[in-house]
Structures are given as structure tokens and as C-alpha cells.
């Protein structure tokens, strides 16, 4: 019998315990100013956005919304470490990443508020819009990376997927081709333990999701997704490897979905209350705040000021969103093709007449 051996080790990086206290001696690079205060501020902003979005949905002002509660550290650290010319290929829970990449907050409300113009974000340059079907974004990231490679651009592509998404073929096909072609992609698995109602334990028997990378012959590792400092190190190194032409990485960030799947979901139907309670002890925002306090980088006065400031930012974004004029039925036809085909242009005339009729009947045209 002949045996082929391979290294099957999955590293888990953690620096802070649940309460934000160092687990051991902190590395030199983690001490001092660093980006930690900035990360924390962005995470608070993300949470304020999330709270507002849920409240807008609950009061009937916005449609179904997918909360990012519990994923703040992953989103903020990943987006902050990206260079402007890197490319983000997000999924539907990456609101904070999109904000940091330049998407106006009002635009996020526009998107989740059901407006065709929501993904029109010139600020995001060549970043892709978020992917709603599961796992497809992983292949788009590989395509973007192929394009960068063909053009000799030394930039990285970052994409994110949930734990459930790794059960899909798209993810496996993506990490496979990323390995075969040594593409500059960083795949982040936001393992928040729940895919709607199905727990992580029912997705896959493997003890880690990161080890799926081994089958594709690429690097896979775990990181505590509630630990901004660990994320900073692991994601930063993966992005640098990608830019340096050293190939792709799969990073399984361990987190917890503190929210329902979306506002249309009720997690109390399937999730034990004590599990959620335990997860709140580990959550990323308080953990980083405690670390900052510990380091003397943050205090209660700054906390109150920043909470007030972000609240204002969000309220201003809501006001900006609500001031955007209603879309017209033309939005359905614009940009469907590079040039509107003649047959479709005829249909657009009928649609305009339909909109006119409904406006004349009174009320908003789309009601």
C-alpha cells in the first residue's frame, strides 16, 4: 500500500478572551494606537445602522432586512484592510463592508427599501453588488481575480460567505479553481453557526469548515471572528499573500448570528434561548471596547460622544434616503440592455401609461 501524506492542521487565531482580556502576552504589533479605535468606531456605526434598519422594518418603513448583528468585527476588519484597488465581492450581510468601501448609508437604506437604484453606487468603483443567491459570489470573486491576474494587477479580491453557503457546489468549485490557478482571492467564511434554522452541526461533519480548503490544495485557517485583533492579523496576512501572488486563502471566522436570519424570520422557533444568551457574552463590539478601555484608548466620555455622533449619522442618512425622489417605472427598463431593444421600448411606453393611470387614481404609483 502506498500512502500520500498531507498536512491537515487548521490553525485557530485568538488574542482576546470573551471579555476582551488578552489570552496571553500580546504581540508588539497589537499594542499602541494601531487601527483599533477606528475599527471600534466603525463597528458601533454598523450596529447603529442595524438597529435603525430593523426598527424601520418593524414600523413598516422598510422591507425585509438581513441583520449583520454579531458580524461587525469581521465586516469592519476585512473592509478596512482592503486597499482601494482591491475588489470586494460581497454577500447580503456585508453592510458594514459596503459602507467602508464607500457606499453611502442612505444608499443601503434605498436598497433594502426596495428601490431599483439601491445598488447604483459609483463610490464602490469596481466592487460587485451584494449577492443574494447563496455562494455564487465565490465564483464571481474568482472571475474578478482572473481578470486582475490577466491584466497583471497585483491586487486582492475578498469575498464572504456564510457557514451554510459552504455546503454549496459554487463554494467548492470556487476554492478549487482558485487553487488550480493560484488566484489572489481571500474567501472569508462568516461561520455564524446558523443557516436560517439549520445549525452548523447539520451542515457538515468536518470539525472545521476551513479544512475544505485542504481538498483544494489551498491554505485554510480559523480565526475568532469576534476578535478584531486576531482578524486583523489573519485577514491582513491573507490579503498580502494574495497581492504578492502567493495564492488564495480560506479563512473561517467563528462568530454568532445574534439576530434572526432576516426580519422575516423568528429564531425563537428553532434556537435555544440559552445559546443566544451565551453568545452575547462573546460578542465582538463589547469585547473590543473592553480591550480599548484596558489599553487606555477609550473611555466612557468618548463612548457616549461616539454613540451620539453615530446615531446622528444614521438619522441623517435616513433623512437623505427619504428625500430621494420616487423612482419611475423607467427604472425597470433603464440599463437592462446596453441599448433598449425596440420591442422593449414599446413595452416601456405601456408601462409609463400604466404608471400614469395609477398616479391619477391617487396615492403612490407603486401601491
Amino acid at each position, binding site marked *: 500500500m502506498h500512502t500520500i501524506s498531507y498536512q491537515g492542521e487548521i490553525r485557530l487565531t485568538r488574542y482576546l478572551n470573551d471579555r476582551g482580556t488578552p489570552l496571553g502576552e500580546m504581540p508588539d504589533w497589537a499594542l499602541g494606537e494601531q487601527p483599533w479605535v477606528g475599527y471600534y468606531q466603525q463597528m458601533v456605526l454598523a450596529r447603529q445602522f442595524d438597529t435603525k434598519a430593523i426598527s424601520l422594518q418593524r414600523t413598516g418603513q422598510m422591507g425585509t432586512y438581513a441583520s449583520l448583528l454579531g458580524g461587525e468585527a469581521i465586516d469592519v476588519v476585512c473592509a478596512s484592510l482592503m486597499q482601494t484597488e482591491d*475588489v470586494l*465581492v460581497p454577500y447580503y450581510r456585508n453592510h458594514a463592508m459596503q459602507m467602508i468601501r464607500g457606499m453611502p448609508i442612505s444608499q443601503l437604506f434605498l436598497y433594502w427599501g426596495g428601490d*431599483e*437604484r439601491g*445598488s*447604483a*453606487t*459609483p463610490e*464602490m468603483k*469596481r466592487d*460587485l*453588488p451584494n*449577492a*443574494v*443567491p447563496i455562494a*455564487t459570489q*465565490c*465564483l*464571481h*470573486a*474568482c*472571475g*474578478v*481575480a*482572473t*481578470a*486582475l491576474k*490577466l491584466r497583471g494587477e497585483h491586487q486582492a479580491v475578498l469575498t464572504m460567505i456564510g457557514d451554510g453557503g459552504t455546503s454549496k*457546489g*459554487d463554494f467548492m*468549485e*470556487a476554492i*478549487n*479553481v482558485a487553487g*488550480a490557478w493560484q488566484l489572489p482571492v481571500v474567501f472569508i467564511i462568516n461561520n455564524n453557526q446558523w443557516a436560517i434554522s439549520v445549525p452548523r452541526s447539520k451542515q457538515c461533519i468536518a470539525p472545521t469548515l476551513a479544512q475544505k480548503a485542504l481538498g483544494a490544495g489551498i491554505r485554510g485557517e480559523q480565526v475568532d471572528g469576534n476578535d478584531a485583533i486576531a482578524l486583523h492579523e489573519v485577514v491582513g496576512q491573507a490579503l498580502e499573500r494574495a497581492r504578492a501572488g502567493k495564492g488564495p486563502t480560506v479563512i473561517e471566522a467563528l462568530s454568532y448570528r445574534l439576530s434572526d436570519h432576516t426580519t422575516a424570520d423568528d429564531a425563537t422557533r428553532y434556537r435555544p434561548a440559552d445559546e443566544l444568551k451565551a453568545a452575547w457574552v462573546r460578542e465582538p463590539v463589547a469585547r473590543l471596547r473592553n480591550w480599548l478601555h484596558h489599553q487606555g484608548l477609550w473611555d466612557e466620555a468618548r463612548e457616549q460622544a461616539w454613540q451620539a455622533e453615530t446615531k446622528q449619522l444614521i438619522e441623517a442618512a435616513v433623512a437623505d434616503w427619504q428625500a430621494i425622489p420616487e423612482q419611475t417605472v423607467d427604472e425597470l427598463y*433603464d*440599463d*437592462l*440592455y*446596453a441599448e433598449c*431593444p*425596440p*420591442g*422593449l421600448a414599446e413595452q416601456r411606453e405601456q408601462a409609463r401609461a400604466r404608471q400614469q393611470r395609477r398616479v391619477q387614481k391617487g396615492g403612490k404609483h407603486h401601491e
Partner: protein
Amino acid sequence: MSDNAITLLDAVNLAMARALDEDPNVVLLGEDIGANGGVFRATDGLQARFGERRVIDTPLAETMIAGLSVGMATQGIRPVAEIQFMGFIFPAFEHLVAHAARMRHRTRGRLSCPMVLRAPFGGGIHAPEHHSESTETLLAHIPGLRVVIPSSPARAYGLLLAAIRCDDPVVFLEPKRIYRASKTLVEDNGEALPLDTCFTLREGNDITLISWGAMVQETLMAADRLADEGVSCEVIDVATLNPIDHATLIASVHKTGRCVIIHEAPHHGGMGAEISATLSEQMLTSLQAPVRRVTGDDTVMPYYRNEQLYLPDVDDILIAVRETMEYSG
């Protein structure tokens, strides 16, 4: 290569070579398209000529081929991807429908998806199971996705060049039964054909025959026979199934008053139904007879021993046309 008599397959190759030559952003990808030149040899010699960076052999994964193409296309590359047989296109659907067709729309034009997905389709070559279906209607139903089908070497050349230069995603379906059926002169002049116009292959006054793909051959043969019987047929190759050029079809049937639509795909919900419905909506009173359809059956595409019983033939078209001509209400 210019000014030679070439097959439809040669024309596909010629158009891709032209596109690779004229635009550094054009990249071919697919299974076995490199050294092997594709299982039908559509990409024969292209990797040797343009290199492995422009003509890329992919891992065996159709979802990946489509998804990769979407990602590349958003960044200004023009991927021309091959799916080996249309029977294996289904893993690519999610990327075509949920992403390629909507990329420009959802980003309000910030990004676009100028990709081409080529696939040989249709029956009649004694291929194994899953290698002979005509499922173009499934794709033609999708807003934002162009579906183009050539039926001659010249149209294969001109339409494929147009598809590659087009800023919208295009599914380009190649009727493999006529890949090598005939040779005609095709000038390699870089001239594309329009993607929003039907091609009137033959003018006539008594009846309009509408078809696309390989069935255009049988339709033209039927038109020859009918001419001998004194029936003057107008023959139209639809060529672009989405967006479709209804105006040309309507104008023709206005003139003739009669219409038979011929396609290989199943009857139920086929593009023939769409065309027929449009004709009756727009010009019922000009019709002198019901619009007839000559199509494949609403059955699974048979294995090859039965495929000739399934595929419409010249006689089927003749019968439908004669009955339509004799119709008196």
C-alpha cells in the same frame, strides 16, 4: 483563411480568432478548448496561436465556467466561454439568470456583463443521452439575456462577432447538426451582423415560414419543394430569440396572411407559441389561417435510434404548409 468556403464550425472558429486578434480583452475559456481545440474543434488552433492566457482550459465545472465569466466580465474582460453540450448548461443557469442578466441593471450601468456563453445544441448527430436537447426557450425567457442562434456559416461568423462585441451577456447556441453540413464563402472582414433583426432568407407572398438553427435547412428545402407546387414561401431565420424582432415577423405575415413556425424544441411553451401569440394579438384579422407549429414532441429527447422520429422533417413542414394553404375557415 479569408475568402474560403468554410463550414459553420469553421466560421465560429474564425470569428473567435478575429475577436482575439482585435481585442486584447477577449478571452476564451472552457473544458478541453486548449490543446484539444474543443470536442467539436471549434477552438482548434486558437491556444497555439494566442497562448494559454487567452485560451484557457478550465477545471471540469460548468457552474464555475459561468460564474467565473460573470466575474471576469464585470472587470472589462470579454469572456467567451464554451459549455461542451447544451445538455450540460443547467449548472450555469443560476449565474446567467441571477447575475449575468441583471448585472448592468442592478448597478445602474456601473458594471456590465459582456460575456458570451457558447454551446452546441440540438439533435441529429447520433449523440448519447443528454447531448441532443434544444432548450433555447428556457434562456430566451430571461430579461437581460440575449439568445442568438446562427443557421449558416456567414451568420455564425457575423453573429458571433456581434455577440462578443456586445455589451450585454449573450448565449450563443450553435446548431451542431449543421456544424459541417455545408461550406460557403465567408469573408473574414470583421463585419458583425445585427443582434436585433431577423434574416429574411427568401421572399415570398403566400405563406411565411419562421424557423431558426438547424431546422432552417429543412425549412428552405420545403420552400423549394413548395415553389414547385406553386406556393411562394417567405422564409425567415429568427436568429435572435431574445430580444426578438417581432416587427419583421409581423410585417411578413401581414403580407402573406399565413404562417408556419418550425422548431426542434418541444411544442409546449416553445418560442413558436410566443411568436404565434404575438401574431394573433397584433394582426388577427390579417390571418387567413391559424398559425401552425411544426415542432419536437412534448417528450424527453429520445436516444439516437429514435431521434429521427422526433425531429421535424421536410415532410412535416410540407404537410403543415399544405393544410394551412388549404384552410378555409
